[in-house]
């Protein structure tokens, strides 16, 4: 089975940002993304999704290396200062390279 290497970019941030980030992702050439609700704790305190304003989301984007870097640096520049946000990039293998 032949596989191709791609990047998995995972962003964990405040759910208030969802609409804005989705627009950014479309503009930055992400072919797709998956969003799930999340909760946890970080430098900005416990975010336990008890109600709307304290919810987190996790966005996963599978893309090529350039797109991942572009998205990561755009997010870092625009959101790191004011929002609870972390992101990390991992190498993954995909089977259908044309999708990503």
């Amino acid at each position, binding site marked *: 089975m032949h596989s191709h290497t791609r990047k998995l970019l995972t962003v964990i941030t405040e759910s208030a940002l969802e*609409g*804005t980030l989705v627009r950014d992702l479309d503009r930055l050439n992400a072919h797709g993304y998956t969003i799930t609700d999340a909760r946890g704790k970080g430098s900005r305190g416990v975010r336990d999704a008890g109600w709307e*304003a304290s919810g987190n989301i996790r966005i996963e984007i599978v893309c090529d290396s350039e797109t991942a870097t572009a998205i990561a640096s755009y997010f870092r520049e625009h959101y790191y200062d004011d929002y609870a946000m972390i992101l990390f990039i991992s190498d993954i293998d995909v089977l259908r390279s044309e999708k990503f």
Partner: protein
Amino acid sequence: MIDPIILFFLLGAVAGLLRSELRLPAAVYEFVSIILLLAIGLKGGVELAKQPFASLLPHMLAVVAMGFLLTLVAFPVLRYLGRFTRADAASIAAHYGSVSVGTFAVVVAYLGSRQIAFEEHMPLLLVMLEVPAILVGIVLARGLSRKTRWRSVAHEVFLGKGIVLLLGGLLIGWVAGPEGLKPIEPLFFDLFKGFLAVFLLEMGLITAKQLGSLRLYGPFLIAFGIGMPLFSALVGVGLGWILGLSVGGTAVLATLAASASYIAVPAAMRISVPEANPTLSLSAALGITFPFNVLLGIPIYYALAEWAHTFERG
């Protein structure tokens, strides 16, 4: 006699303070708040059908003006007495200029259980009062900067869950009329207080969580969280009196003025004024003002409204 729905709120608060495992699933909270918003809208809509829209226009404009005023009064107090940054002061001011639907529901239940009538177009005024403070808050934080993306702000403000459901309920109630609503009345009207009780249980839990962060921000925020609603209630009573509302209506308007938003405004501020610390405004609005209004404020505002009307009669 203390209203049982208040006891639900206290139960939630105590359970939260004792770090109980109790937790409402997010979907349940969401569902309950949707029902409450729709019920409030439907009830107002039915009554709207009975009176000409033009006669309500002065009330709507007056309430919008009150929203601007309250935000503009709160801002300098926070900025200069409280020494908050400009963004924080503007954001907190916007929370206090806007309204809380939860508090509105409690005052409706309070008056209902005492069989005190109030003007039924209050839900319309609730919608009107939600928006102006957000706009003033953004302008206070930013100035009229070109960088503000007004389109996305407008989207956030006017298409938020609260406004859509309230306005939608108003329209449905208006179109359907009292007869048309009969079949769905059991869910929205008969069960209203039950839903409100569950809602307040969750609000108690949320309130208890805010108390930790309050300790961090000190006495000014606590004083503001109690002082500001008392001041706003006076403005509300005055306005209700000028507009010629009944005692019940004046009490509702005072409560609307006194309540602080914790859903629409936080979401809009988070997007439009991201440098403002959301913990500050939320712990004030949820940790102090909401419980203050629910437990003590509403009876006080009702007493004020009664006093204003007795005074008027001499």
